[in-house]
């Protein structure tokens, strides 16, 4: 019996660690890696809806994807959507978090009021926005019509407007989450730095850009990444409730197009090809972002 264990050595059988991580690896392999490989494979086939016949078509699914104006339009809509969610969403939430970080009366109330949107399910958020903007009965078109002297704001026929409304809804939905993280980041910044800058004669604007913003960069990087994933993958429910990809495919962003092709149109080949393309794009974006950001981020201690 060996009772004395060296510090570096793992106590127990050398294979035990592998055994211990096996369950999580198994989950990842079964639910992520295996389906992924399967969809890579299926992207080279054309398959009937019921899977009764499957024909190898080589790169045809990809070829069609890249030559299809629908896919291009969908990619552009996705990029616009993601850019809006990331840029507007993060700017607004940083501004709000900064305000919330001031010492003011009723701070707790404001914090909760601004954070609770994150607790809503996409379906509820979508329903709220859809009702608010309903062309004939909604509150917003009514106000717009009153103020503008009769302009009919119909996002069910106006594609750009629909994309804007959906983007705004998605941003609003994520606002609470972003604010919480920014707030935490702001509260971690030692007050001495801010005070020191102030003593040196920096105004609030200068202090923010030279002290606060750089020191927040780990949080910002993290949020950029999370918001990108959110904008690409997690807005399905919102789109489905609000526009179902319409009008005229204006809000048919990639994740929704993928759903339609796979589950509505039962075209596994096209949907698999799309998911592979989205996977590659997201991976590249994530790698660039993390590389770039970890190099530039200043981690406060």
């Amino acid at each position, binding site marked *: 019996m060996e009772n004395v264990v060296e510090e570096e050595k793992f106590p127990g059988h050398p294979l035990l660690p592998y055994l211990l991580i096996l369950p999580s690896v198994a989950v990842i392999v079964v639910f992520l890696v295996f389906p992924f490989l399967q969809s890579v494979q299926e992207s080279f086939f*054309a398959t009937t809806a019921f899977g009764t016949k499957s024909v190898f078509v080589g790169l045809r699914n990809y070829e069609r994807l890249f030559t299809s104006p*629908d896919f291009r339009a969908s990619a552009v809509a996705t990029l616009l959507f993601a850019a809006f969610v990331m840029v507007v969403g993060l700017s607004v939430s940083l501004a709000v978090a900064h305000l919330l970080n001031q010492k003011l009366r009723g701070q707790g109330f404001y914090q909760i009021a601004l954070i609770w949107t994150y607790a809503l399910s996409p379906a509820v958020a979508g329903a709220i926005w859809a009702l608010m903007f309903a062309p004939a009965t909604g509150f917003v078109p009514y106000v717009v019509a009153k103020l503008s002297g009769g302009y009919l704001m119909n996002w069910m026929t106006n594609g750009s407007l629909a994309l804007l409304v959906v983007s705004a809804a998605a941003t609003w939905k994520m606002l609470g989450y972003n604010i919480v993280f920014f707030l935490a980041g702001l509260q971690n910044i030692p007050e001495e730095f801010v005070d020191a800058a102030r003593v040196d004669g920096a105004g609030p604007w200068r202090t923010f850009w030279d002290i606060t913003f750089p020191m927040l960069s780990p949080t910002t990087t993290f949020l950029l990444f999370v918001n990108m994933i959110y904008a690409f993958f997690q807005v399905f429910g919102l789109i489905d409730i609000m526009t*179902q990809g319409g009008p005229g495919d204006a809000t048919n962003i990639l994740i929704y197009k993928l759903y339609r092709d796979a589950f509505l149109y039962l075209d596994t080949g096209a949907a698999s090809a799309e998911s592979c393309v989205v996977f590659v794009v997201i991976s590249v974006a994530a790698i660039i972002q993390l590389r770039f950001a970890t190099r530039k981020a200043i981690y406060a201690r």
Partner: protein
Amino acid sequence: MKVRQWLLTVLALTLGACLAAPSALAAGKVQITWWHAMSGSRLKVVNKIVSDFNASHPGIELTALYTGTYAETLTKYVAAYRSKTAPNLMQSYEVGTQQMLSSGAIIPVYKIPGMVDETWDWAQYVIPITNYYSTAGNLWSMPFNSSTAMLYYNKDLFAKAGLNPERPPMTWAEVESYGKKLLASGAVKHVMSFGWPGWMLEQQFAIHNQLFANNENGRKGMATRVLFNGKFGVKVLDTWRKLAKENIFLYGGAEYSANAAFQSGQIAMLLQSTSSLSGIEKGSSFRVGTGFLPRLEGYPRGNSVIGGASLWVTKGQSKEQLRAVWAFLKYLAQPKLAVEWHKGTGYFPAVNAAVQELLGEGWFSKDQNYLTAFLQVLSGRRDTAAATGVRMGPFVQIRQLERTAIEKATSGQVSSKAALDEAARKADQLLADFAQMNK
């Protein structure tokens, strides 16, 4: 402590009883499952039918499962079929018909009586409905919930604008002249909207006896080319486009989203499924009138198309199960039940005897609007493929393309011809792919 132990014991016993009860009850029964897409108030009617059926058929245990929307139900069915766990019976929407026909996964219902050593009188079903689901004169799926489209209008707004509230517009020209009067009276800012825009385009083809796709609307052979971008389609879309420009037509979105504008009195007319009738009557504070779908002058008469869904029987069941499924399908054809189904949901009863019974009890004189729905589909011609409705493999996608074309044209982005041509080009590609894969 003691109380808690008692509680736990009781809980465990109840749980055990709950788990044991169904299997004990079901011992020796033929188990069959049915996947359907009926939600809301329709789900209640379905559940009542199922429990009544089980009560009156002691040898059968039918389990009905709501499996989401039509599209979700079909997706799940496909997945289940591929893993050999498909239900015995499933409900598929009308646009999935060709997909189901080509699937190789189902038994056509006309063959079932022979397979269980029985005979059945197929003439008892309402013809326009069975025509829709028949191939070469044989019924492939059992009609279940069928509807068509009609015009709804607000009688109070009509009266306000000086129009006769008992006379709905019959033609698109009348829709325009009524619309101008309604706008001029200041009663509304917009006059008309549609539910299910793609379906409304298909309806226009059918009621004017125009083919929507080649090969006799995909009924003689598989459709390989759509015809909706021809002269007639352009004419229809131009009409709608003009109405949109005159502020008469207001695009209202997919499915049922236009109903809210109608029910709140923002618009005076609505083209919508007949299955919305009871909902609209209950949810509106004004007098609701109904009429036939508006027509274009100078075109032949066809018939309005059936929508809704039908029931498909899965291949590869045991004879006992098939017998049980057949018992249920026969059960649904009872006039009493079909009447109950109609009154509970607004869908058409699928058997003639039920229509007789409704007529006999004066159901229609109580509410004329229900009669409009029936006449809309029963008064047209039944002998042409154009009037029966189109059948296409990738129908779900193509209907989406139609909707996109309507959205683009009525919002004035592109001309009607350009919008329809683009949709037709994509639709033809889809049809070619489908034909190639399902040779």
